[in-house]
């Protein structure tokens, strides 16, 4: 089995920042595994602006922010990038098994940093009853369809939840010629950034329903309509407040969950509620030498903070390797 100083799983903003940071603190043998055919992770589909003000002191789009780190990573020979490499297992001994076309490899790291990002809550997780037709998307999937594939998921859209990706996608749909009928948020206020409420929702006159929820989805083949109802502060439906919205598309934007199945497999102690490792200290796990950073550690609002904390993870891994 190949042994490396540091193995990093995930080539998005967190993994790249951690790699560069560990290198700058003396780690000279780093393997960075990325499952996609490009580095950059989810930033590649976040083509809107709003990134980098904290870290680079200028306003960038997602791909531009990623590009700066990609350049940096590529310029460091000590960081070996392995693309289309999909980690499928990890042990407490820091042995990572990964697949890529034509190969199944195992590698043991002195330290491992998991930068595996997060996934979106699904319709099932927020318990929306009704039928299961085509036309129900996570906001992130809709973003990928439009921005990466050039495919428009639907013409009449209702957004469930007001997370940032949902707000940004509401605007994106309008720009592509679709009509966004409503954003329905069960809470009193939005979870998204205020600037996104202004520039994505108010700019385009999209109706925003706070304290409301989707009580049912209708449609056999494709979504046909939803029923919406007002709720009280305990999320109980208020009788007589229901109404229907005709639509062919539903976007779910109800929050994110850290993606930590591999660290869980390795035996790291997990917080079941948040799906992140239990730890007193940022980026650390219950197994010394296994670190978690970026959105797999905790869900961040902005990428600049991911970078900041992942730099710390790189430093922690370097110190750990140095102490061995």
């Amino acid at each position: 089995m190949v042994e490396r100083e540091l193995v990093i799983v995930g080539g998005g903003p967190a993994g790249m920042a951690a790699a560069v940071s560990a290198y700058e603190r003396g780690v000279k043998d780093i393997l960075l595994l990325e499952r996609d055919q490009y580095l950059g992770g989810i930033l590649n589909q976040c083509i809107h602006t709003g990134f980098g003000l904290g870290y680079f002191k200028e306003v960038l789009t997602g791909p531009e922010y990623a590009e700066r780190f990609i350049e940096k990573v590529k310029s460091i020979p000590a960081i070996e990038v392995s693309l289309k490499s999909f980690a499928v297992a990890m042990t407490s001994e820091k042995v990572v098994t990964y697949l890529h076309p034509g190969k199944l490899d195992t590698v043991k790291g002195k330290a491992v940093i998991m930068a595996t990002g997060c996934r979106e809550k699904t319709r099932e997780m927020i318990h929306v009853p009704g039928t299961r037709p085509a036309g129900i998307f996570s906001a992130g999937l809709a973003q990928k369809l439009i921005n990466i594939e050039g495919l428009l998921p639907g013409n009449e859209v209702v957004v469930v939840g007001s997370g940032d990706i949902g707000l940004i996608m509401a605007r994106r749909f309008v720009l592509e010629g679709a009509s966004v009928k409503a954003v329905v948020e069960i809470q009193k206020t939005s979870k998204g950034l205020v600037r996104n409420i202004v520039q994505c929702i108010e700019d385009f006159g999209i109706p925003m329903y706070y304290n409301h929820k989707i009580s049912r989805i209708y449609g056999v083949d494709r979504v046909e309509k939803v029923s919406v109802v007002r709720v009280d502060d305990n999320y109980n439906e208020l009788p007589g407040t229901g109404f229907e919205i005709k639509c062919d598309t539903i976007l779910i934007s109800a929050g994110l969950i850290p993606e930590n199945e591999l660290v869980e497999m390795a035996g790291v102690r997990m917080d079941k509620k948040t799906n992140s490792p239990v730890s007193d200290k940022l980026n650390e796990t219950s197994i010394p030498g296994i670190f978690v950073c970026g959105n797999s550690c905790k869900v961040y609002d902005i990428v600049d903070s991911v970078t900041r904390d992942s730099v710390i993870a790189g430093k922690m891994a370097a110190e750990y390797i140095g102490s061995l």
Partner: protein
Amino acid sequence: MKQYDVIIIGGGVTGSAIARELSRYRLKVALLEKEIELAFGVSKSNSGIIHPGTQNPPGSLKAKLCVEGNKLIRQVAKELGVDFKEVGELVVVFSEEDIPKLHELKKEAELIGVEGVEVVDRDWLKKNEPNLSDEVVAALYAPTAGIISPYRLVYDLSENAARNGVRIHTDTKVLGITAEKGKNFIIKTTRGEFFAKFVINAAGLYADEVSSMVGISDFKIKPRKGEEFLLDKKRQYITNHLIFPLPTKVSKGVLIIKTSDGNPMIGPTAEDVDDKEDRSTTEDGFKKVVTFVKRMVGAIDENDVIAYFAGLRPVAGDDFIIRHEDKVPGFVNVAGIQSPGLTAAPAIALMVVDILGKNGLALRKKWFFRRHRKKTEHLFALPFSETLKLIKKDPSYGDIVCRCEMVSAKEVREAIKRGARTMDGVKFRTRAQAGRCHGSFCTTRIMRILSEETGVPLTEITKRGKCSCIVKKDRRDG
């Protein structure tokens, strides 16, 4: 002219099992399915349990065919390369008072020929099913219960039937049947007319309507909805057995099910509905099921539920209806095939062939019947050593498409080569999109592979046929 000896209406597990059985004989056989793919009706929401035969009243067709089917399915699974696991089941009770009921069930089971059943106590349960709650005082253990993938069974049965000469017509809905006295049936469909000497009605939820087309209207199919909830694959070993409560009059109750895909499942509910297409799920059903199963296994956590769906059982009274309609010679009804229909399917197929023989169909065996089918590989079911062998044979086994359920590009392409035409078709065959992220990450890749392999434009890729397209517009089309 589309002239056949036998036409089977309905491409679920019943129709497919009959098709394969008939393909052993020198006959021209066709199977007609109204949906775009097979197994898209009742069979798609089956629990995948191969029942031992317990909990069916002695003397019923259900009891007889279930016990026979449980024996037959092992051979069928082996020949077709479908995974069958004999995991055993436990019917649990929460109070000492109910233990005599377990003995009653045991007696009934033995009467119909179920082997190996025994009543087990707390100590046995502690050792063999440690996650069971302390409230459980005893259980009936039936070791011959097993699990299988219901869709893969349908796809593999029908694929093997097709290889042995059966013509399969999907997207072909039967609109009317005329019986020409003593000669032929004329079956009018959305894809033209078909002619057959014998017609088998295995139309699931619509069996009553198909039967009415030849004037037999003495039964009605009442849909009984069941909502089921799938847990994360991480919880694969939450139980070692299938866990049942004591059965009630209408159903076998809410169960904890092991599935052949690894993900445990909880459910189903049982609710009579009017609409044959009502597969909606409810908040109430979810709460009921979670509360109920937690009493049996406290470790089940509702946060581990990653998916849910509802299926409709085609109920026609208490028992299966399997009979030749003497008033319409050549017409065989196979209706009301609800639980334990999946288990019984191979036995039903034998029974139907026997009925056909007795009613004038000449049954001459082919000199060569291809009984075997090459096993479809699934990475999630293999140890890494086996995965490595596959990757060496074909590099695209190492190209992962679905990360939650570990499905490779090779498996997706293979599924399409074997007949998948829709996103659901790919999902049922491979589990891609069926994991915890619900296809957020792999949908676009699967759409592209489907488009590449079938030549269908991205805008025409559907979830399950008809108007269920995934996207409405391609920027490239202007």
